[in-house]
């Protein structure tokens, strides 16, 4: 009985159910095209492609948990990627660590701007970041013009980082080689572990949940509401900056529209992963798993023979489905909690 309960509970966890969908998707797609999973490149793409989205979704999730949203992450990411690229134009052999420090720092600064505007203007984050989404992009276009930063402009260490594998293929069955661990994937996992640990185990992390759960109560309670909301935007900016740096390393080609539309992917990933858009609930792991699923769906649908016209619609349906599911679960949960109370 106890054991069964444990499994039932496990499956009911949003992270686990999304992961199950992910595994099912991979299995089905692999059945159609075995190299999707059973090949060096297929395996690598499966792990590497979501890395940037995962990092982006983590920061976005932090902001959504505080009952706000950051629409500017795509622009922040593009601007930071351009900044890192420009730095390489001037210092060809800049160490990758410094490039990351630059990207994260610049992203955090842009998040700081968002947080400050939200705090000062006392306008919902959605409106402010809608504005900064255009402003950051505008600065990017002004700065970059029609120029392009090419792979030759980047240092070799940095470019290699974007495509290298920390562990080479170690599963070798006949012709099939797989099992590598791309470096960017490891970076994303590290960010995930740190962020998840922070949001779960540190006071301010829990306070971010609290202000998203009931802002008025947080004020009466004496939680520093504005500081916390500010913190969430800075975290989100920093992860977006990091994602921009990862983007630069991975593709080594940057133009002024880099990162365009990524904000919607980030929000979609968080929502699919169970981060409630009304704030206060959801986990970082959920957002990361959501990003994993979203990226993989985009890769799998063409293989499954779905016309590319329909791919966006599927993603959209998934997002709406996730939100409807959240509503249904939330109202069911609320009824159950009330019923439990009545029974006791």
């Amino acid at each position: 009985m106890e054991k069964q309960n444990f499994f039932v509970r496990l499956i009911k966890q949003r992270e686990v159910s999304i992961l199950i969908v992910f595994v099912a998707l991979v299995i089905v797609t692999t059945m159609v095209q075995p190299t999707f999973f059973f090949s060096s490149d297929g395996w690598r793409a499966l792990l590497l492609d979501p890395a940037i989205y995962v990092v982006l979704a983590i920061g976005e999730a932090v902001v959504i948990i505080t009952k706000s949203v950051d629409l500017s992450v795509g622009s922040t990411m593009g601007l930071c990627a351009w900044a890192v690229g420009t730095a390489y134009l001037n210092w060809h052999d800049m160490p990758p660590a410094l490039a990351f420090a630059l990207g994260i720092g610049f992203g955090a600064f842009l998040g700081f701007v968002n947080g400050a505007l939200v705090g000062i203007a006392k306008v919902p984050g959605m409106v402010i970041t809608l504005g900064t989404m255009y402003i950051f992009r505008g600065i990017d276009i002004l700065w970059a013009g029609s120029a392009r930063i090419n792979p030759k402009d980047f240092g070799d260490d940095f470019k290699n980082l974007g495509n290298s594998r920390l562990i080479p293929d170690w599963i070798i069955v006949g012709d099939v080689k797989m099992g590598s661990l791309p470096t960017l994937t490891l970076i994303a996992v590290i960010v995930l572990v740190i962020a998840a640990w922070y949001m779960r185990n540190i006071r301010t992390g829990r306070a971010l949940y609290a202000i998203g759960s009931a802002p008025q109560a947080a004020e009466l309670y004496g939680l520093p509401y504005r500081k916390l909301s500010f913190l969430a935007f800075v975290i989100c900016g920093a992860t977006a900056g990091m994602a921009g740096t990862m983007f630069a390393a991975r593709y080594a080609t940057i133009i002024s529209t880099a990162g365009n539309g990524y904000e919607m992917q980030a929000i979609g990933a968080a929502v699919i992963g169970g981060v409630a858009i009304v704030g206060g609930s959801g986990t970082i792991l959920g957002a990361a798993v959501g990003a994993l699923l979203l990226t993989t769906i985009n890769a799998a649908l063409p293989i499954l023979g779905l016309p590319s016209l329909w791919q966006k619609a599927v993603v959209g349906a998934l997002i709406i489905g996730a939100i409807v599911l959240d509503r249904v679960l939330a109202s069911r949960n609320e009824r159950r909690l009330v019923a439990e109370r009545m029974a006791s």
Partner: protein
Amino acid sequence: MSQAPTLQLRDVSKHFGQVTALASGSIELYPGSIHALIGENGAGKSTLVKIIAGLYHRDSGEFLFEGKPVDFKSTAESKAAGIAVIYQEPTLFPDLSVTENVFMGRQPVNRFFRINRSAMRAEVVQLMERLGVGLDPDRPTRGLSIADQQIIEIAKAISLDAKVLIMDEPTAALSGVEVERLFAVARQLRDEGRALMFISHRFNEVFSLCDTVTVMRDGNYVSTVAIKDTNEHQLVTQMVGREVTSLFPKLDTEVGETVLEVHGLNSPGVFADIDLHVDAGEIVGLSGLVGAGRSEVARAIFGVDPYTDGQVQLLGKPLPARNPAAAMAAGIGFVPEDRRQQGLVMQNPIATNITDAIRGSLVKRGVITHKAENAAAQIWAHNLEVKTASLDAKAETLSGGNQQKVVLAKWLASNPKLLIIDEPTRGIDVGTKSEVHRRMSQLAKEGMAILMISSELPEVLGMADRVYVMHEGRITAELSRDEATPESVMYAATHSSVPAPAAVEIEVTETIVETGK
């Protein structure tokens, strides 16, 4: 009480713009004592509490905590000093667990600032045991009853080792058993030497729990006495403290035909068997405690809320249920309780707000001109003496009293047969208040039927020709102007059946005059 007071407020005031929320508040809380604070709605009790909590900052006066002057700038500061407040509104985070709610912001941590979940949980288990409640520490607080939410608030206060615990109307939504449980805990805390303050409008609770009582009226301190040296009658007199009727001039009127008739209106769980009528030229009061179902009845009559059976008739013609447009067309005007949310479009100009209900009649060749709108609005703004520089100013720029006049103007412009007013003078300064009363009285004299819901007992007694009193969704008394006294209305408001035997202790409750928001 030879000890020094834990907390002292002397002559503290607080203003919001031109409105004085607290003129002069004073109170002293002693360790090992439960101190009651009572007063009418608007007496300044909640403001006083919020000043102690650090939510508001006082404009003047002294604030001493443990003998030293303090100046709390946030609730975090007062909490750190050892003051815990249980507000009327719950301050829990519904998505987080009971345990997290108790410890939010000051969770026990071990190495690397990591929250020590097991230690935290163990302490909550202990607290719940001590409080004698079986609350699951891991469940989210969403869906908990008010009583359980308060227990969590108290658990917070204990774990904080608060020296002062303030409870702002904690029993308003509790059942008898839950009240007993709360009181047992309160006495326990008192015996541990903490200072407690208890705001309530239920005299029997004040007398059974507290040892000292402070009365406030109109933002001023009135008196502090030991409970054993006073009685209900004395406290009521101090609370009201004025000749009730003189303030509210109701003109005598000729009562005409029946305008509104309500028969057997039912809405399960909200109200039941509502029978009432309002005649032309009459002001009828609808009184009762908060949650008695008064506003719900009014909303059902106007067609906003549903009802399962029963009938509403206006001038002998039945009105369809759930159809406010039909109610308006038939001649009902409805001034809701919450004018900011429901009565006005705050961002719109005053003129637009006034002409809201008569839009249709202003249309000429398919358009409404600015000129036609302002001309129509001008008449009523003038009639009601709305104080504004321009009719083009936004409604939100007006004071509360003037906003209420605009809502009134909006409905009067449509020339209704029946006007339903929910809390006509809430949050309005005294001067404008009597103006609104004078206007209502005038309207009744001109033959309008008025149904007035009011939580302010003096207003009901002063203005109404007849009073219906509701208790838990039912009308428990219909009182004529002569029969309606504070005692008779409050008795009917707190008992399911009338009449009041002389020997029964009358529960004069301040809820009549208080809803908290």
